């Protein structure tokens, strides 16, 4: 993950680090946009925690989320279910990420955030903004690679539109 290596994780405002991290965030969303679901789990560490949760729950420190994965096995199962089991109207998902910023660096863990938009284009009607919010992450940087150790997709939406099928 990340085409450029970063030698030192010591300066928060290091523009090289900032740029490499943004690239990592965008590679993640384009992987999902491309429906390259076999590759999506490779963005995570084996023990990664991934959740899609509301601002309401996140701000109150409540553990329930719409999707809650503890370990890369559960992350894999989410996309396998999406491809092989779940029944839903066909659609195109497209994600936008911006405002990626580093809040802190603790050893080889980067605490970072970004804004996300998830658009949904159904097959018989117009595109709509489905979900928006903030990624709240712990990114492990090791051996020249970024991987998510923790990713919380915290949506600002009060309510999910109908059903949430897509990973964010």
């Amino acid at each position: 993950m990340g085409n450029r290596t970063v030698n030192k994780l010591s300066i928060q405002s290091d523009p090289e680090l900032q740029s490499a991290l943004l690239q990592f965030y965008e590679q993640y969303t384009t992987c999902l946009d491309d429906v390259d679901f076999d590759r999506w789990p490779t963005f995570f560490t084996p023990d990664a925690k991934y959740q899609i949760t509301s601002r309401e729950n996140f701000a109150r420190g409540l553990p329930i989320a719409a999707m809650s994965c503890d370990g890369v096995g559960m992350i894999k199962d989410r996309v396998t279910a999406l491809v092989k089991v779940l029944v839903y109207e066909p659609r195109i998902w497209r994600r936008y990420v911006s405002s990626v910023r580093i809040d802190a660096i603790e050893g080889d863990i980067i605490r970072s955030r970004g804004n996300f938009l998830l658009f949904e284009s159904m097959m018989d009607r117009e595109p709509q903004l489905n979900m928006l919010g903030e990624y709240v992450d712990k990114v492990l940087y090791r051996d020249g690679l970024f991987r998510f150790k923790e990713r919380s997709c915290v949506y600002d939406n009060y309510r999910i539109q109908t059903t949430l099928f897509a990973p964010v």
Partner: protein
Amino acid sequence: MLETSSTPNTYKWPTEGVTRIPSWIYSDQEIFRRELETFHYGESWNYIGLECEIPTAGSFKRSWIGPRCVLATRDANGQVHVVENRCAHRDSQLTWKESGQFDSQVMICPYHNWTYDLAGNLKTMPFFRGCAGNPGMPADFDRKKNSLKQLRVATRGGTIWATYSERAPDFVDFVGPEILPWFDRLFNGKPLKLLGIARQIVPCNWKFYTDNTHDGYHAALLHTFIPKFGLWRPDGDYHQIPTENGRHVLYRIGYSKELQNTRNEVTKELRVLESDFKLADPSVVTQHKDEFGDMHNSAFQIFPSTVVQQFFSSLTVRHIVPKSAISHEISWNFFGYEDDDAEMTKARVRHSNLVGPSGFISAEDTEIIAQIQPAVNEYHSNHVIEMGGKGTEAAHTMISESAIRAFYDFYRTEMRL
């Protein structure tokens, strides 16, 4: 699907009775208003929230009864009140927050600062008795007549309910003796803990959702995750029991690890079974602990506002909130107990992946009903509800629509259709 020549203006139910549902009940505005008056604002108890969400004096939680916004408050004596979130003066909302704390044991409207106690009684307002030559309110202004609309409240096992009706039976009688033991099984007096709330907004009539929760028939067919992982099976120990003349419905499902993995002539009828999909982490479909000591999963609908369910370790109250004839909200209120250890809380969160707005066995419910709405907006037809026969008795199989027929027997009586 049978086309019918009757128009919704005549509001005549098909002559066959409850083996037919006329599709205009899912789109007609007047039927929607009549349902709210008959059920939500009538002699029904509506789910409001959990007591643990309003733990301290002055705390409040916002909730909904249909399109009406209400507040649950706790006063300094520990008593729970439910009032409309609507100032008696100009209908302003008293708060825009989902939950929080009112200061000094009063609720103050932001518009003209009319001030109410936590039970909703109007206490005072600025300039009530006038000042600097302004006379204030007239002498015949009666604060009692200008208080918030206060609802009748019941609490049981840590849950809060409210009704608009003085005539509604006591809550335990409303729930009825068949469901009450299953209610008390979950809300057993142990202090509850809110684990989180997940909300969905669904662009279709709310009764498609309540029908869906009466429809064991679809479970193993639409939710292919279910047969694939043996979570329920057509040959399992499965009971769907209409109660209170079809008003509510109770499900109890015996859980057997052995049956979960069995393949036989019943599983041959299911479309998706022997695919190459194995879970990388099967703990999501594995029981953590038989916490209630009865090897059961259970759900029940307390009409019109809730489905309460326990599936493995995931405990949740689904709050069904009609917003219009063509939209409704569902909030999933997940809870545990104060004495849950860390492993149990983890299991509750893990199993919540099965349910909720993204749940492996629930995601398709709202998806499938939302895409029906355009058809019932356009066409008037009668839905044929004859799986399992024509009766309204309890069924001991998933493959029956008898609970739907029982519900519409009740619905027709209450709605005078």
